């Protein structure tokens, strides 16, 4: 596929896939965008337009300083939504409003949450991290002690193992990207390599797993392969530059880049080095994929390659026909996203989207593609490929291989139907 248009071309761009998808390189330069609209030489002028108003905020001093800033009051809809387990106020899950965000980083106040017994109010001075089990010398770390260790930063997504579970249903749920895929978020996490702490404790050669446990009232715990703990696990103290938020594990959480969210244990208080997995409640009765034959796949650890279009998506109306940017997020627990394709005709033809730099391993990757909507019906889909060569499956293919008797690891292609009225709906197509 070559770009036929030079920078000075000033004519309508040819679609690269059916139903108006344009070349991804047209997002890269302003002059190319003008070429794509074909509108640089003529813009409508409103008849009898009034002069632009000089607003009150242009004439009087603004608000004073505040210690911790908040979003504009006009952004009150950019918030998480959540569901709680019956009889509780803090057990359940909240979701990131991806349809109202852009970029690759999730603001800390909008990072998705999954709590098993609410958000503990942990005093950082009395919090401890214990490392014991199959080690030469068990160790207790204070937060002050850990804060003196060499730090490392890592931009990583965390996705709940149950994210996208509505894709296993028989009919397309009438929901948008927040309800469907809002349990994935991405932040810059900074902390101490777990490998360094384990090395100081002295790992017994028999050891193959660790148990990670939280200080919440549920004592949430998961077994993690020792290879992962040594490879790239962090004891994260900072989230996007500030101390990890209480909802995300204050004062410290385990970060296992690419692994299912539940294993990234929040409020981390104990690491026990073991020979075998402990077989906790969450790695046996939950977070296992029950197949049609009744057998359940256990220790499904990295999240597979996945993507979803965030704009346009349900809740956002398409207005007049013309040029739009299709934008979304893609990610893989197995490495970098190498390609995202977009379709506007339900998957018959595809165009490569532009991947917004930086493209990082096990982080959200923003993709973009220009689209000239002709005002007719369209079915928008995105399909990610990761650097291992894995291609995001269709929903049919996902269910064909695993059945629909599970709620976990739903990474199939999501379809948004656009009506000729510009309304966007979740569809199975």
């Amino acid at each position, binding site marked *: 596929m070559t770009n036929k248009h030079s920078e000075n071309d000033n004519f309508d761009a040819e679609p690269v896939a059916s139903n108006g998808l344009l070349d991804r390189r047209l997002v890269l330069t302003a002059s190319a965008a003008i070429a794509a609209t074909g509108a640089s030489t003529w813009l409508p002028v409103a008849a009898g337009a009034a002069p632009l108003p000089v607003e009150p905020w242009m004439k009087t001093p603004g608000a004073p300083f505040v210690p911790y800033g908040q979003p504009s009051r006009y952004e009150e809809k950019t918030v998480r939504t959540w569901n709680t387990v019956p*009889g509780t106020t803090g057990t359940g899950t909240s979701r990131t409003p991806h349809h109202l965000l852009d970029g690759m980083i999730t603001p800390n106040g909008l990072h998705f949450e999954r709590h098993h017994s609410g958000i503990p109010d942990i005093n950082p001075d009395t919090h401890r991290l214990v490392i014991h089990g199959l080690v030469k010398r068990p160790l207790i770390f204070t937060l002050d002690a850990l804060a003196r260790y060499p730090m490392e930063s890592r931009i990583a997504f965390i996705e709940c193992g149950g994210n996208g579970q509505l894709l296993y249903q028989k009919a397309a749920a009438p929901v948008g990207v927040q309800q469907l895929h809002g349990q994935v978020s991405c932040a810059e996490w900074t902390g101490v390599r777990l490998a360094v702490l384990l090395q100081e404790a002295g790992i017994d050669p028999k050891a193959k797993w660790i148990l990670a446990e939280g200080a919440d009232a549920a004592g949430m715990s998961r077994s993690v392969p020792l290879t992962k703990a040594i490879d790239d696990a962090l004891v994260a103290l900072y989230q996007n530059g500030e101390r990890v938020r209480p909802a995300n594990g204050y004062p410290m959480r385990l970060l296992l880049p690419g692994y299912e969210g539940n294993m990234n244990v929040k409020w981390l208080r104990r690491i026990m080095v073991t020979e075998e997995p402990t077989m906790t409640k969450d790695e046996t009765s939950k977070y296992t994929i029950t197949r049609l034959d009744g*057998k359940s796949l256990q220790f499904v650890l990295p999240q597979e390659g996945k993507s979803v279009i965030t704009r346009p998506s349900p809740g956002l109306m398409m207005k007049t026909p013309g040029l739009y940017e299709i934008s979304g997020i893609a990610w893989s627990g197995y490495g970098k996203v190498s390609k995202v394709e977009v379709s506007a005709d339900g998957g018959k033809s595809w165009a490569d989207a532009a991947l917004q730099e930086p493209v990082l391993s096990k982080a959200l990757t923003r993709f973009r593609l220009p689209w000239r909507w002709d005002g007719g019906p369209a079915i928008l889909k995105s399909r990610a490929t990761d650097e291992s060569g894995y291609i995001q499956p269709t929903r049919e293919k996902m269910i064909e291989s695993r059945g629909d008797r599970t709620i976990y690891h739903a990474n199939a292609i999501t379809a948004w139907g656009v009506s000729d009225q510009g309304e966007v709906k979740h569809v199975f197509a």
Partner: protein
Amino acid sequence: MFSRKILLTIILGCLSTFAIAAEGPNLGQVATAEEIATWNISISPDGFGLPPGRGTPRQGEAIYTAKCLACHGEKGAGKPNDQLAGGLGSLAGEKPAVKTVGSFWPYATTIFDYVRRAMPYNDSKSLTDDEVYSVVAYILQMNGIIGEGEELTAETLPKVRMPNREGFITFTRGQ
């Protein structure tokens, strides 16, 4: 898979070189078993970690009625929260799977581990070890896994055979 393993070996090699070269600050305090006993609450399938204690289903029923029934229903029937009993034979087929402690959980030790650390929801870690053994015994008995007169201890609990013990397959990519 093979190349992943080789890569991992290289990473591990580099990492240990780094850690030795970096010489961690060694700011951990060496912990005694007594210090961490109250936090050391995980139980493995072979029973490692189980405390001394005992309990029967009959003793467990009284505790269940007082502290568990409001959320988990009569005899573990569920509602408003998780169903604990029944569902045997429901994992395969077309109808929705009814996943309970009896039909799904592969290890009895996990019940002890979870009840002791997380239940009752509003007052976790409040049950004595004897009370936990008793409640676990009652949950197993309501599922027909042990008899009414059987007593659970650190020796007998790991020997309890759960119906779905062979129901799990360790995932490898592509499944």
